[in-house]
């Protein structure tokens, strides 16, 4: 009886978490034009999406932005994690604190502060401003992912490389990077998902020349419910899901070996 109650409750919460997503996916295959009446299975709305060049452009922009932001934040985030793990320098606690601030502050606070900066400095709102903003909010997550991997790493290997005469750069490139590469990929995928999922920050720092999918969905959703949105939202959902599954797989399969 107690077991029944236990699994019943767990299932109920999972149902709560997945029912809306499930309904969305289901309706995206709805043949009927009426968004609330099931008219049989059809790829119609996905075909409509495919023919909509404005949407295809927005999707391409979204991917370009997410890939660039993930790559750049992985690069900078990895270097930051290495510095925090290995180097002693002045203001380390402050740097840590700043990364914590980025992670904890509400998106909207980050958004307006970056908008103020871009306007003041004169950065044109568009791809560049979006990229800089996305890299900034992805950064702490990459740092945490890579830092965790570095912590489970024996420093003696690095000492050995150094004793054999490797410079710092060479040591990082030939010894450290290969060992932490699963964390790099996982960090990249997390950055990719974060960039893909962001609405708030993008809303503020976007410009008229560069349209991305989440903002497109936002403007469509505000006006009401259209069947195309279901297909579009489903595509975005599956993209983030794929990136997430990939990052989790990498993180659990290649957990650091501690001898």
């Amino acid at each position, binding site marked *: 009886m107690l077991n029944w109650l236990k699994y019943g*409750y767990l299932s109920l919460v999972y149902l709560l978490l997945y029912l809306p997503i499930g309904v969305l996916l289901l309706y995206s295959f709805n043949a009927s034009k009426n968004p609330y009446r099931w008219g049989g299975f059809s790829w119609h709305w996905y075909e409509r999406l495919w023919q909509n060049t404005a949407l295809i452009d927005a999707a391409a922009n979204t991917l370009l932005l997410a890939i660039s932001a993930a790559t750049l934040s992985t690069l900078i985030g990895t270097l930051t994690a290495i510095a925090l793990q290995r180097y002693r320098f002045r203001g380390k606690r402050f740097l840590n604190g700043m990364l914590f601030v980025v992670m904890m502050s509400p998106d909207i606070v980050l958004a307006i502060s970056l908008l103020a900066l871009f306007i003041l400095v004169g950065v044109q709102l568009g791809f560049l401003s979006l990229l800089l903003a996305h890299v900034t909010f992805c950064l702490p997550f990459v740092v945490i992912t890579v830092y965790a991997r570095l912590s489970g790493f024996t420093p003696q290997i690095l000492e050995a490389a150094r004793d054999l005469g490797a410079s710092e750069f060479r040591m990082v490139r030939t010894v450290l990077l290969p060992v932490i590469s699963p964390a790099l990929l996982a960090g990249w995928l997390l950055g990719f998902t974060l960039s893909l999922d962001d609405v708030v920050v993008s809303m503020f720092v976007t410009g008229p020349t560069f349209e991305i999918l989440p903002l497109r969905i936002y403007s469509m959703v505000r006006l009401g419910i259209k069947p195309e949105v279901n297909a579009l*939202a489903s595509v975005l959902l599956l993209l983030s899901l794929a990136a997430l599954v990939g990052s989790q797989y990498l993180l659990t399969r290649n957990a650091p070996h501690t001898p």
Partner: protein
Amino acid sequence: MRGREPFRIAVLLLIWGWIVLFVLLPNLLVVATSFLTRDDSRFISWQLTLDNYLRLVDPDYLGVFGHSFYMALVTTLLCLLVGYPFAYLLSRLRPSLKPYLLFLVIVPFWTNSLVRTYAMKLLISVNGLLNKLLLTLGWIDTPLRMLYSEGAVIAGLFYILLPFMILPLYAVFEQLRPELLEASRDLGAGRWRSFTRVVLPLTLPGIIAGSLLVLLPAVGMFYVADVLGGAKNLLIGNVIKSQFLDARDWPFGAAASLLLTVAMAVLLYAYYLSVNMIRRPDNDAELA
């Protein structure tokens, strides 16, 4: 000598440059803006004033802020009520099952929250599935108008933020050693007493962390209010957004955002203090 290596210097320069330029400077800009005067042509003019803060205590805005905090608070309590038993049950499952079920909690956590808000709208709208279900069951005669209400905003926030509550709670339940419960039973404590005297205090850091992770983002999620709440159920995020993007009153928007940041900092500090207070007995035990 070691500190002078070019690679090390380049790395530190890059990181510091990025943090100062894109984190520190922008935040200082917002603080400065909140003390300046609005200007129609150049966003702001260099005239120092406290007006923006005085306008925050205007009854209209105070009403919006109060309502916003109220909705966020109800969301937090709901998440706690549903998430606490859930996290407990999850932590007591077979080890072979756990990673998969935990992964199923993380998935919604990482998927687009706007898309999930929209999915919620689809579910609860007048012709939506929920109404159809209730009609079929015969529980209601006419479809309920759930959309564009306070309840819809709370439902949306709850749906989006529930994983943020479950994950920290799950972490503390994982650390909770079952022997402690057995010990309290052996010492004659009943179920309720074991819960209030052993489980609750030990899981308090998770409760507080989860509550903050729900409460803090909740007030900023303007799109949830936009999609589900209609014109009357605004969040602080909506106020800030409209000041920056529609009304073009940056100084006032900056002041509102600073208020939000300060409230957040106070809550985080309270969290830090409470965690320290809970950990103290352990430290004493180690010293003894």
